[in-house]
């Protein structure tokens, strides 16, 4: 996770205008494989975001994998970033690590990381899932 976080921060550090930053974010979203329509269901929908965000968690051989999607371009980019950060980590890693990637890529203020783009809610969901995996073990 830490490694991926550093990589993302470095990618953004070369971009200065909002156009460039958002272009990168959006293209990250476009590179992420789309969620199959059969998974874009009520049950996987996050509550409280302005755009739709679906997220699916898989637990396999001690690691957590996330698959997600959104109907808005920018949110999809954020979702992709979150998936890049957390997918493949162990539950313990996820619980222990507090990332502040968003404040470091120069979008913290701009993205209004509140309900609107669902970032908090996404990370909450990921954390809850990690806790659950640990408890189930």
């Amino acid at each position: 996770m830490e490694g991926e976080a550093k990589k993302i921060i470095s990618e953004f550090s070369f971009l200065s205008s909002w156009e460039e930053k958002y272009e990168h974010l959006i293209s990250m979203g476009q590179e992420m494989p789309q969620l199959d329509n059969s998974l874009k269901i009520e049950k996987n929908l996050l509550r409280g975001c302005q755009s739709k965000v679906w997220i699916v968690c898989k637990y396999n051989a001690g690691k957590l994998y996330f698959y997600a999607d959104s109907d808005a371009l920018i949110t999809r980019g954020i979702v992709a970033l979150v998936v890049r950060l957390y997918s493949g980590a162990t539950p313990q890693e996820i619980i222990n690590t507090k990332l502040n990637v968003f404040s470091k890529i120069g979008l913290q203020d701009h993205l209004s990381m509140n309900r609107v783009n669902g970032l908090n809610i996404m990370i909450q969901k990921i954390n809850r899932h990690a806790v659950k995996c640990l408890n189930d073990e």
Partner: protein
Amino acid sequence: MNNYDLEKTANLFPCLSRGEEKMIYFDNAATTQKPTVVIDSIADFYTNGYSNIHRSAHNLGFRATQRYENSRGVIRQFISARESDEIIFTSGATESINLVANSFGKNIVNKNDIILVSEIEHHSNMLPWQQLAKEKGAKVKNIPLNKDLTIDVESMKKVLNDSVKLVVVHHLSNVTGIMQDIKEIVGVFQELGIPVFVDGAQAPAHIRVDVKDLNCDFYCFSGHKAFGPTGTGVLFVKEEFVKKMSPYKMGGQMVSRASLISPEWADPPLKFEAGTPNISGIIGLSAAIQFIEDVGMEKITIYEKRLTEYMLEELSQIPELIIYGGQKKAAPIFSFNVDGVHHSDISTLLSENNILVRSGHLCNQGLMNYLNIDGCVRVSLAFYNKLDEIDQFIVVLKKILSFLNK
């Protein structure tokens, strides 16, 4: 009394011109900025004469009570109510609506009765009535609408029957800025003795509200949407109904006879203002209302008409843009979508460019369903906004749309 130059009023709102970064504040339907006179009146109260009210035996308390009660008079006059006793202070439109649903609705709505509510109400003017209906085994029924999102009075007359006990409608839509013809609607129900509740949350910042002329039985709004402080609200109740209402909250200040076995309530409006009210807020609200009157409600309405027409003209130049609610707006509130673009992407990038708008369901899922959309962008202006801000907004919007469509 001051006489402000409308073109220069933006300077009187410190938050609009703070710091270096120029911001265009187009989120006025969510809340309005505060003029210096309002901020100062709150500070002045805490600095020069702060006390609790009503029950104090000392001069400080007496003067604070006078300021609080004078505010009631200011509000009465502002909305042309007959008596100050018809003005109840609350913490906001939401509390005003909940108060009526509980203190009045519960007394007059029974099993199988009908509450008529337009299906395009703000959540705050929908959920309390649904809750009331649920508790009482009553039904919430939709009021028929015309294509332009106004109430279809002729069709409405047809759904009328003896079971209808209360009618609930907004004055000015928080999504479209479209105004309902309250006077005509009240006309229909008045004859039948059915009370009409009007959610006026969006109105007093834009148009002259005259409850005597509208002739509605209940009217409410929030201070913070009319240049006043947060945590303040107004509820107008026609005298004949105020007497039929049970208390809402229970507590200090609202008992006249302090027997606890069978308490006797104070006369309205105090009966509905249990506990220590938001004294500084209400004093600030009366400063806001005084400010509006000094600027001139009529001047505001005329000026905003120009803003509205100009914005509509400019928006109509963007072909992919769908604007909701048509042309007949009573306030410069514009909600739209752009074909193939997500509303949240637009609002995020507008914010990135220091243009502050809102997007989503706008706490009006009913209207979203009616329009068959899951959300939209809302751009809402106040009288301190300017034509050249509209120009800048349009330039940025076009840039964003071409960026997102790449």
